[in-house]
């Protein structure tokens, strides 16, 4: 999968690239409006991430151009402007999603995955975690033939960790994914731990959950070999 990152903050673009590479994406970077335009007309991409505040032109203008050359790509607008009208215009102009800076990198990845599922209608098979099977699209988890009752947020947690398997996610990353900007402001709160505890309790009734690891002082991780 090819990703074009059009972002004038070079360090930021680079960090996005580093993260996405780990998830097996091939990334190309552009740092200006013209640079972006050049790359867009020359190549085909699966994902195009556009920063709105670009030197040399408006990102929304670039989006309009890009839609012509890469009509099938998935577009995510990335901006620090965070103005409501930008979001509305961006989505009206055919962007698939919108991320406000600062965002967590796993969040970017998960949004890209979500678009793929929606847009490219990639039929994912049931995937296994431990002795369980999970369907990220239809949002269920089973043990043999028994469906496991997870709350919406519990399932969100499991699927987010599963999407980034073998990678530790912090409580901050997890809570922002689940509660967005309403994530709680007092970090010593242990509500993520409470959710994990609940999940373990529900799953342990059927099979062991040693794949759901606590990384002490860091966060949680799903181990999958």
């Amino acid at each position, binding site marked *: 999968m090819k990703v074009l990152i059009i972002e004038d*903050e070079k*360090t*930021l673009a680079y*960090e*996005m690239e*580093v*993260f996405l590479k*780990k998830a097996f994406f091939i990334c190309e970077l552009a740092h200006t409006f013209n640079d972006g335009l050049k790359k867009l007309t020359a190549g085909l991409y699966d994902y195009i991430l556009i920063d709105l505040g670009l030197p040399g032109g408006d990102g929304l203008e670039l989006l309009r151009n890009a839609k012509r050359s890469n009509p099938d790509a998935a577009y995510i607008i990335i901006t*620090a*402007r*965070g*103005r*409501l009208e930008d979001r509305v215009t961006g989505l009206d102009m055919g962007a698939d999603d919108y991320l406000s*800076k*600062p*965002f*967590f*990198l*796993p969040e970017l990845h998960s949004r890209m995955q979500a678009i793929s599922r929606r847009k490219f209608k990639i039929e994912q098979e049931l995937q296994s975690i431990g002795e369980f099977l999970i369907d990220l699209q239809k949002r269920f988890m089973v043990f043999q033939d028994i469906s496991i009752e997870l709350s919406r*947020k519990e399932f969100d947690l499991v699927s987010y960790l599963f999407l980034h398997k073998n*990678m*530790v996610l*912090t409580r*901050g*990353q997890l809570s922002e994914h689940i*509660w967005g*900007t*309403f994530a*709680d*402001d*007092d*970090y010593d*709160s*242990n*509500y993520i731990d*409470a*959710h994990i505890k609940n999940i373990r309790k529900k799953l342990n009734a059927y099979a062991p959950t040693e794949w759901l690891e606590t*990384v*002490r*002082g*860091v*966060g949680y991780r799903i181990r999958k070999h």
Partner: protein
Amino acid sequence: MKLSSKLIFFIAGSKLALGALFVAILPLVVNRIASDFTNFSLEGQRKKVMANIGKNGVETYLAGENSYGSYTMLKDEYIAIEKAPVSLHLDTIRTTKRIVETDTLSYRVLSATFGFKGRNYLLEIGKTTASINLYNDSLQKFAVYVLVLLIAISIFSDLIFTRRLIRPLGQIIKKRLVNSKFPFIENQTRVKTTTSDFNYLDESLISLMNQINEAFAKEREFTANASHEFLTPISILQNKMENLLVDESTSHQVQQSIVEMMKTLERLKKISRSLLLISRIDNAQFIKKERVEPAKIINEIIEEISHRMEENNINMEVKLSHSFAFDNLNHDLLFQLFYNIIHNAIKFNKKNGSIVISDTLKGKDYSILIEDTGMGMTEEETRQMFNRFNKSNSSANTGYGLGLAIVKSIAIYLDLKLQVQSKLTRGTTFEIQFKKIEGNFSGMSSGAKA
């Protein structure tokens, strides 16, 4: 006391005082004038008599007698000429008594001696004081009546004029100070007046308001720009840390440090986002054209926040008996407002405490009340609770002190009335009042317990 009343009292008072003074000195003045006039007329008659004597000789009057006297019919005037000793020299006018045909009358008498053909004569011309005072009294009375009438008319016209004159001042005060609400964008039209002082006052107030507007706009712009500018560097730092965290060469110990750093960065991020949110609300960057049902929002929030209640074993009772919808609101902002209040109600509650969410309908005003059994606040803390970066609660469990500042900005922007009552160690009650019910009246009762 009002300025117009003061002016009227002063003007009327000074007029009455002057009138009284005039009435007091009126008899003196009138007497003096009457006396001068009498003297003048006596002198005139003397001149006539002397002219007559000069022309026709003193015998015209004496006709061979030693003296001559003549009265008018009512004895109010007389003239007398008699021979006088050579040594007598008189030229006076005085008031004195004279006996005229058995009547003793008071006269104003001009007495003058004159020589004619080697002989000395005494001329007396008299006028009764009664005849002088006759006009005097009625004149005085008339003058007093006219004066009273004039004072009354002038006070009345002063009253009307002063009220007209002062009216723009009242309008300015009402328009600029009493009825004006920050930001002072409306009501920029001048108050109509021809009084330059009021024009000046009005202009000054408008310019003052514009200065305040400008200062606040600058402050908001700065807050927006600063918090916005923070977001990109925060973004870079955060993403760098994330990559470092999952780098294979990073040891567990370093990972733990990175997480600590990320938590700190998270604080900075939250502060910037909150400030940005406040300045966006204050700059009216949210559309408020949605029809929103507060009761629905409350339920959404409870679902969202229930994990926090479980954590502290807090019992929530929702007793909403109405489900009204209101126009011209913004769903997200109202959500944020209730979220922050309920979140605080949980955060500053006691272990095993409770929260009651209820509503009241007073006339057309609908209120939602959020009552907690938390630690409460002192009066001083209640006053300051909406200030930015205010962390009044002395407990260790604190946020950034922006939650309620956001609540206040939203309430102002959405035109909601916000009231807080708090008792230390007993709890706090927030009341959010919505203006005027518009349609969609349906009685709903829900006793959901969370």
